[in-house]
């Protein structure tokens, strides 16, 4: 009984095949027998014909195989076109939109409060900006109609952001909208950011004294973080202030290291400092003295440029220069002190500074 004696090749192949077939048929017969036992038992136990009750109900629940209809014969979106009356606002709403509408209408649900808050914030911004724009003609005359564009764009994006259908429009635009929606949780705070077009000059100034204010490239809004926000550099902050408040009028309330004067974008800022300092020493000594002729000459030559005496301006300018020099660092603190003790103020030889104070006053 050695199987090794049976070489499986040539004529024995048929034997092998016959063997395989035999095994196969045995298996199939086993399966059939199993089924027969199962059926026979069902018959004898009486549950074989249970699923066939009567012809009528069999016809009723017959499987339907028509297009446009499921196997029960029901139409798929039958209830889509029905309209329901909202108990709150008494409007007729489409059935598929009914649930989200109720959520917003009744003011319950996660999204509705968020949208309401956002709307309130933007309304406040709008009403505030409208009242202030009459104050300053300069802002109104701004030829660069970016603000109008921005406002229209913002409204459109607002509308598209709150609707749950927004994902459909995203399929076409890969760029901004996609990134905008993906950053939506962050953008919610971002939307509360300020657009400089909407603020009057006073507000801009006050805003810039407390906040970073750097205008973002993407949204054209001012950064609402603190003066030390890590996203923007001091240079950017100075540039924004120059842009918004006119040149050489930065009001940076920071008293930093000596490195800061370099960040001033005022072209003649440092020259101004040096000029003031240079002027100080000859002025501390009484200008009547003939010893410093050159300086008096110099000061004389400079005086006629500024003929209008501005005593009231003196304090302002002192304060202004003080703040300037305060930003300028400790080096010019001497000039600060010496200037403030001075009584003759119209020594402001830099015409640019006078123009600033014109604007401020």
């Amino acid at each position, binding site marked *: *009984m050695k*199987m090794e004696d049976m070489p499986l090749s040539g004529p024995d192949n048929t*034997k092998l095949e016959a063997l395989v*077939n035999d*095994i196969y048929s045995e298996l199939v017969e086993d*399966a059939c027998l199993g089924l027969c036992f199962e059926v026979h038992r069902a*018959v004898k136990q009486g549950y074989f014909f249970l699923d066939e009750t009567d012809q009528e109900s069999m016809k009723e629940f017959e499987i339907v195989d028509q297009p446009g209809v499921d196997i029960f014969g029901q139409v798929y979106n039958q209830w889509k076109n029905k309209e329901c009356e909202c108990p709150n606002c008494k409007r007729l709403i489409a059935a598929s939109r009914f649930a989200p509408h109720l959520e917003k209408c009744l003011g319950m649900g996660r999204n509705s409060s968020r949208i309401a808050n956002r709307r309130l914030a933007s309304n406040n911004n709008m009403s505030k900006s409208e009242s202030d724009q009459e104050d300053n003609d300069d802002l109104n005359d701004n030829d660069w109609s970016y603000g109008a564009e921005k406002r229209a764009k913002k409204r459109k994006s607002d509308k598209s952001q709150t609707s749950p259908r927004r994902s459909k429009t995203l399929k076409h635009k890969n760029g901004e909208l996609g990134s905008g929606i993906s950053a939506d949780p962050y953008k919610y705070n971002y939307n509360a950011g300020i657009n400089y077009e909407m603020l009057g000059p006073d507000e801009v100034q006050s805003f810039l004294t407390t906040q970073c204010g750097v205008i973002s490239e993407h949204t054209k809004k001012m950064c609402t973080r603190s003066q030390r926000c890590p996203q923007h550099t001091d240079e950017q902050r100075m540039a924004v202030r120059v842009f918004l408040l006119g040149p050489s009028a930065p009001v940076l309330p920071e008293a930093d290291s000596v490195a800061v004067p370099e960040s001033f974008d005022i072209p003649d800022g440092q020259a101004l400092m040096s000029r003031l300092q240079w002027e100080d020493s000859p002025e501390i000594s009484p200008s009547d003295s003939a010893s410093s002729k050159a300086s008096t000459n110099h000061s004389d030559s400079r005086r006629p440029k500024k003929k209008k005496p501005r005593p009231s301006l003196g304090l302002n300018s002192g304060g202004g220069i003080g703040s300037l020099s305060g930003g300028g660092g400790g080096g010019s603190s001497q000039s600060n002190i010496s200037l403030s003790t001075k009584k003759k103020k119209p020594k402001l030889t830099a015409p640019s500074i006078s123009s600033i104070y014109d604007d401020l006053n």
Partner: protein
Amino acid sequence: MSKDYQMKAAINQKLIEMGERERLKELLRAKLVESGWKDQLKAHCKDVIREKGLEHVTVEDLVTEVTPKGRALVPDSVKKELLQRIRAFLAQHAAL
């Protein structure tokens, strides 16, 4: 030939011992149910029972009526796969 018979018996024994026969059986059953063979045959059974009368049906009746039809109704793909598996088993374990 008795050699064949012996060989057959030996192979059968090996099949059972290694559990391969059970596996093959389960595989066949699953495939038959999946292909709808079982439902077809059940319907045929119903006809036979109605013919013979509910009370008087015996197992033998069913077997004689159903088995040949069952054998014929097995789908080709199922048959081929099973033959393939048996052949593979033999090749592996029949000590060529």
